[in-house]
């Protein structure tokens, strides 16, 4: 039994933690928020220099050629520091899509650029405020040209390329577009967490390239979502732990009625419940990491479990961190709202808690017997 990261992976995580602390920790997210930026380009450049955008890219394409577990430990630290960079869009989705589904020509052209930072990718699924399904997609492709509108596209301001699911003659395609093409209009959209940027992306006869086979786009995007769900869950666990640490530190320094508020059971039990939620989420994430890295058939169930558990943990920890801080927690000045807002964005970005619970249970329905713990 070895449900743990290797010493090398733990070392990488430790390096990542030190890196984000040294670069200013939460101050970066706050600066992006206060100055209405689309992301922290300096921090992003440094991440590129560390080689992390190429963690999963094979060495033949200038990447590090490492596995998903290395990505998991970086994700946890990105989550802890709320780093305002397009890492998840470009690395968890775009890069994975190319590695899995692109032809050699696309790979040779784009993978080295993703490593060097000359290309940044994102992804488009949502089209309106209803849940996107295979049957309600309205963005279409005809003769390789895409028309229609995707919304809530993360990081489209900094991204050079995008993958998106579109309706095609054979069903659904997963397609690649160049966002610098003049037929594409990218417009910022206001959102709850201004340390992250979201966009409306409009296509008018935009040239595109097919990824994988035509008609299989919906299956592909579900697989990419499952993979990304595990990585986002690690981000959520990192954020949960940071919010719990912040609540704990404050409960030790704040006095009320002549005692540290952390000596009251009302606060202790609140923090214990946060610890329980983080611990369950983390263990579910380890299961997800195992399924992701071993390309197990259990990935859809493992991903949904990690995702639901981590969403619940981050939402609980971020809201109760504010509560523990009392009035201070409601001020812009204290960092509590950074976690609260990021937890909300992360909880809907891949589909809501209810959506993933539904995925979880439909996977359970397919299984006849569960192995006993």
């Amino acid at each position, binding site marked *: 039994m070895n449900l743990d990261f290797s010493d090398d992976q733990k070392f990488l995580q430790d390096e990542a933690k030190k890196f984000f602390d040294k670069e200013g920790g939460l101050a970066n997210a706050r600066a992006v928020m206060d100055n209405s930026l689309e992301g922290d380009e300096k921090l992003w450049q440094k991440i590129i220099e560390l080689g992390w955008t190429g963690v999963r890219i094979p060495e033949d394409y200038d990447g590090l050629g490492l596995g998903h577990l290395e990505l998991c430990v970086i994700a946890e630290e990105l989550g802890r520091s709320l780093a305002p960079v397009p890492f998840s869009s470009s690395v968890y989705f775009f890069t994975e899509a190319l590695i899995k589904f692109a032809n050699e020509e696309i790979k040779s052209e784009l993978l080295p650029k993703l490593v060097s930072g000359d290309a940044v990718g994102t992804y488009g699924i949502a089209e309106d405020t209803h849940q996107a399904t295979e049957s309600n997609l309205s963005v279409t492709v005809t003769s390789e040209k895409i028309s229609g509108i995707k919304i809530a596209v993360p990081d489209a301001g900094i991204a050079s390329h995008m993958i998106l699911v579109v309706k095609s003659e054979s069903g659904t395609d997963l397609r690649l577009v160049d966002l610098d093409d003049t037929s594409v209009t990218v417009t910022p959209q206001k959102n709850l967490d201004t340390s992250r940027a979201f966009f409306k992306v409009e296509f008018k006869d935009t040239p595109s390239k097919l990824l994988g086979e035509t008609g299989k786009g919906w299956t592909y995007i579900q697989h990419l979502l499952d993979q990304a769900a595990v990585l986002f869950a690690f981000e959520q666990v990192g954020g949960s732990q940071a919010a719990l640490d912040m609540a704990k530190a404050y409960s030790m320094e704040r006095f009320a009625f002549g005692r540290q508020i952390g000596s009251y059971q009302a606060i202790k039990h609140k923090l214990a419940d946060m610890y329980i939620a983080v611990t*369950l989420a983390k263990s579910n994430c380890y299961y997800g990491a195992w399924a992701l890295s071993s390309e197990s058939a259990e990935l859809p169930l493992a991903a949904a479990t990690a995702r639901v558990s981590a969403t619940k943990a981050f939402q609980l920890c971020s809201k109760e961190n504010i509560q523990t801080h009392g009035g201070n927690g409601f001020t812009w000045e204290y960092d509590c709202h950074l976690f609260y807002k990021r937890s909300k964005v992360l909880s809907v970005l891949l589909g809501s808690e209810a959506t993933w619970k539904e995925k979880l249970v439909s996977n359970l329905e397919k299984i006849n017997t569960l192995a006993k*713990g």
Partner: protein
Amino acid sequence: MDFNDTPEQAKFRAKCREWLEANAELKENKSGGHADSTLEDHLKVAKAWQQKKYEAGWAMLHWPKEYGGIEASPIERIIWGQEEAKFNVPGGIFEIGLGMCGPVMMQYATEDQKDRYLAPMAEGKEIWCQLFSEPAAGSDVAGLRSKAERDGDDWIINGQKVWTSGAHYSDFGILVVRHDPNLAKHKGLTFFFVDMKSPGITVKPIKQITGQAGTGAGFNEVYFDDVRIPDSQRLGEIGDGWKVAITTLMNERLAVGDARGSDIEEALILSKTKDDAGEAMIKNDSVREKLADWFCEANGLKYTKFRTISALSKGEAPGPEASITKIVSANKLQEIGNFGIDSDDMAGMLIDENDGVSSFQGAWLGAPGLRIAGGTDEILRNVIAERVLGLPQDPRADKGLAFKDIPTKA
């Protein structure tokens, strides 16, 4: 990451398996436990099984070699436990003796006493119990009031213990009592072992909310009326009772662990098979939401345990993550029991004439006890907050007071 044994662990597992297959029957299905008709029969079967294990060297794996153990590592104990659980064998009788009383005796008893008591304990010939909790001392167990007064070479014990598992069939017990109420709460305690057949000891089974009393490893009240214990049966110095007790209590919290009973598997099977207004319950959105929540909890606990085992497997000290197990599993058990009962709608309260209480009804009836035994939910949250997160202790109204001056009522 993988879920495989190391070569040495696989070898040990095969050894366990080989002996178990030669000496016990595999469970036919995973819900099949050991069917015991009466307590006497159950004890007879349990003692015979313990004797068999003792003779083959499986009875007390973790004990030191000088007392007949093999000094098994924690991971080997886990592997033995996993394999033994697959067989239809009796359990629940010797855990307190081997897990708590034996180690205390090894540390504090004289060489003669160890020679006299440890082997019969390991062999299953003598059963031991633990006498700590009292009617007025549960979560605050150091507030116990049973008295020990010195009389020559003896101590005279008066008072009452409660929630003593197995006292009704135990031969010996370990006991904490107050030798001096003028000292502070934790300072005035002393630790003994006692012959449960001593004159003046009365054992009364507790009737639980399940309606059960004196069945299996059930709970008891134990009354002490002028019970004489020789000073030679004192474990540790006079006044060191709390220190001796705390190590055994830590063992208990680890031992209680998982709440057994209806879990997500049974809830899922019920939801798939049971009809709700013309379609399977699992088609109902509120049922789906509950199943998702329980699966996240059950799966989270399963992999939390795997993380602990992984650390032990590498010879590392596990993190504090296992501290969440009992709170989460006992509450989940209560919810799933409730769900199973509700699934019968207007008839949910009825008990089957032939089969008796269903596993869901049993879970619902038993879960309140599990949320209390071995540390209440509230005490365990304090433990997580104080020992894991490092929050300050509550200010205590009894601090610095002699025990006799501590307030007990308004």
